[in-house]
C-alpha cells in the first residue's frame, strides 16, 4: 500500500542574524493510510517546526531548504502559498498545543467553523451550521447545535480543543498533524481526547502525526514511533518494539525516565544535560555530550541504519 505522506530528507533552517538554526535537518518517514505515527523528543528538538513544515507554514526567517514532502504522491515543497492554501485544511490539517490561543475570542464557534468550511467549498449558512454541529457531536460536544452560537470563553480548555479538532476534521483530510494537543489539558481530559481521536482516526481513515514530548502519551496512541533529537530522527520503529528494545541511547533514556519505569518511591531517572542549541552543533553525534556509551567513533555523524521496520542513528546501539 502506498503511504499517504512521504517525507524525505526534510531540512528546515532559520536564517537568523545570529546564525543558521538547523531546526529540522534531514528528517525522513512515511505515513500509511489511517496510521497514527508518534513523533517524540524533548522540547526544542524540532517537532513543531517539522509539523509546520508539513503544512507549508514555517515562520520567516525559517525556510524549507531541502528535501521532499509528498502528499498522495504530490510534491508540496516548492508549491506557492495560494496552492498550499488550497491543500491546507482540506487534505492536511493541524491542531495546536494551546486551545485557549487558537480560537478567535471575538467570533462564535459557528462563525469560525463556517469560515473554515467556506475556505474550501461553497455552502449555505444552513448547511454550514448542520455540518458544523455534526462535527461537534462527533468530537463529543453535547447539544452541539446550540453551542454553535457560543463564544470560546464559554468553553473549558478541553472543550475548546475538541472544537479545534472538529475544525481540523471538517473536510475529512487525509492527514492531521496534532502538535501536543493534550499537553495543556488535565490528565483525565487528556485521556478522553486521546480515546476520541483514536476512534475518529479509525472511523474516518484519517492518518495522524501525533507530536508530543511525552513518550507515555504517544505510546498509548501511536502504532509507530519516531524519536527526534536536535533536528534529526534518531530512532524509528513499531511502538511496542521500540519500548521493549530501544536501540538508540537517547530513546533508552526517554524510556528509563518514564514514571512507570521507576521502582515505587525511587526518583525518576532523567537524561543528564539538556537539548543542545541548534545554532552551532558540533560535528559528530549531537547526543554525544550526554551519552554514556559515547566512544571515539561518535565524533563522526552516525548514519541511519535500517533493519526491517526498525531504524536508528547510532554507532554503538543498545543490544537488540
Amino acid at each position, binding site marked *: 500500500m502506498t503511504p499517504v505522506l512521504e517525507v524525505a530528507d526534510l531540512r528546515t533552517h532559520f536564517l537568523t542574524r545570529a546564525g543558521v538554526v538547523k531546526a529540522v535537518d534531514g528528517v525522513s518517514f512515511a505515513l500509511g493510510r489511517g496510521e497514527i505515527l508518534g513523533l517524540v523528543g524533548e522540547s526544542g528538538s524540532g517537532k513543531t517546526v517539522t509539523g509546520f513544515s508539513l*503544512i507549508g*507554514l514555517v*515562520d520567516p526567517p525559517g525556510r524549507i531548504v531541502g528535501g521532499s514532502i509528498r502528499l498522495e504522491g504530490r510534491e508540496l515543497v516548492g508549491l506557492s502559498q495560494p496552492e498550499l*492554501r*488550497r*491543500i*491546507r*485544511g*482540506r487534505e492536511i*490539517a*493541524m491542531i*495546536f498545543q*494551546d486551545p485557549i*490561543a*487558537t*480560537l*478567535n*475570542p*471575538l*467570533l462564535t464557534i459557528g*462563525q469560525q467553523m463556517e*469560515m*473554515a468550511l*467556506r*475556505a*474550501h467549498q461553497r455552502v449555505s449558512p444552513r448547511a454550514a451550521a448542520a455540518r458544523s454541529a455534526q462535527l461537534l457531536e462527533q468530537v463529543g460536544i453535547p447539544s452541539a447545535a446550540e453551542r454553535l452560537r457560543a*463564544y470560546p*470563553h*464559554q468553553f473549558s480548555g478541553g472543550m475548546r480543543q475538541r472544537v*479545534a479538532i472538529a*475544525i*481540523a476534521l*471538517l473536510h475529512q483530510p487525509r492527514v492531521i498533524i496534532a502538535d501536543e494537543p493534550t499537553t495543556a489539558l488535565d490528565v483525565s481530559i487528556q485521556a478522553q481526547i486521546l480515546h476520541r481521536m483514536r476512534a475518529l482516526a479509525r472511523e474516518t481513515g484519517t492518518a495522524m502525526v501525533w507530536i508530543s514530548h511525552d513518550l507515555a502519551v504517544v505510546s498509548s496512541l501511536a502504532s509507530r514511533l519516531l524519536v527526534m533529537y536536535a533536528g534529526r530522527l534518531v530512532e524509528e520503529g513499531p511502538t511496542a518494539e521500540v519500548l521493549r528494545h530501544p536501540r538508540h541511547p537517547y530513546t533508552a533514556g526517554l524510556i528509563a525516565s518514564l514514571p512507570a519505569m521507576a521502582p515505587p518511591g525511587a526518583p525518576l531517572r532523567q537524561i543528564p544535560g539538556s537539548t543542545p542549541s541548534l545554532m552551532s552543533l558540533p560535528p559528530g553525534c549531537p547526543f554525544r555530550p550526554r551519552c554514556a556509551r559515547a566512544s571515539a567513533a561518535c565524533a563522526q555523524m552516525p548514519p541511519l541504519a535500517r533493519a526491517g521496520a526498525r531504524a536508528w542513528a547510532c554507532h554503538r546501539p543498545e543490544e537488540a
Partner: protein
Amino acid sequence: MLGFVIQRFLQAVLVMVAMSVIVFAGVHAVGNPVDIVIPPDATQDIREEAIRRLGLDRPLWEQYLIFAGNLLEGDFGRSFVYNVPVLELIAGRLPATLELVLISVISATILGVALGVYAGYRPEGWLARTIMAVSVLGFSVPSFWVGLILILTFAVSLGWLPAGGRGETVEILGVPWSFVTLDGLAHIVLPAVNLALFKLAMMIRLARAGTREIMLTDTIKFARAAGIPEGTILRRHLLKLISIPIITVFGLELGSTLAFAVVTETIFSWPGVGKLIIDSIAVLDRPVMVAYLILVAFLFVSINFVIDLLFALIDPRIRARRTA
C-alpha cells in the same frame, strides 16, 4: 447588559453635574466680566444696574442654581457680548466644526488603519518603510507650521485650492453645510488635511503595532492551517482583533478635535466653534465659555458611553463580565 447601560447612564449624569459645578466655579475665578462688558467711563449707577441685570450681585451658589435650573430647561443664557442666546450662537458655529472634524478624523482613521495594517502585514517591504517614514513626519511636525506650508503651497504658489473660509454652503435641516457643494469641498480640503495629519500618523502606528502582534498569534496560524484565504483572515480575524484600541483612540480624537480644533480653524479662517471660544475668552464672555465647556464635557461623556457600548458589542467577554 441593560443594567450596565443604566449604571453607565447614571455615572454620566453624575459626571455632568460635577463638571457643571467645576466649570461654573472655574470660569467665575478667571475674571470679572463687568470690567469688560461695561464701558470704563460708565457711572456707578449704570454699573450697578448692569450687575443686577446680569445677576452678578447674588451669591455664587445662587448664581449656580439659577444657571443649573436654566440648563435643565435648555437655556444656556445670553452672550454678554452679542446679546443673543448662547445656544443659538454655538449652534450657528457647530456645523462648520462638525463637518471639518468628522471628515478629517474619519478619513484619517480609514486611511491610517489601511496603511498601518499593510505596514504591519508586510513590515519588510519598501512601501511599509515609506508609510512609517510618513507617520514619523506626521508626528514630529507642528500642526500650525504644516497649515502654513499647505496654504503657501496649494493656495498661494499653485493656486489650486482656496486658503480660507467655508466656500459655498447649502442648507440642510436649516443648517448650512459646505461638504455638499464642490466649492465647499474645495474649501474643506486644506484644513481637513491639516487636522488629519497627526491622527493619520497615530492610526498608522496603532494599526501597525496591532497587526504585527496579532499576525504572530496562534489564532492567525490556526486560521491559516485551516486554509482560510489571507483576505478573509485580515477582514474577519485581524480587523476585529485590533479594533478595540483603534475605536478608543478614534473616540478620544473625535472629542478632543471637536473641542479644540482652534489652531486649524484660526489658520484657515474656518468659522467654527474653536474661533468662537477663543474670542469669548479674550473678552471674558462668561455664558459662552461656560456653555461651551459644558457642551465639551457632555461630548466626552457621550463619546465614552458610546465607546463602552461598542466594546461590549465587539467583545463577548466584556459583555459577559457586565451581565455577571
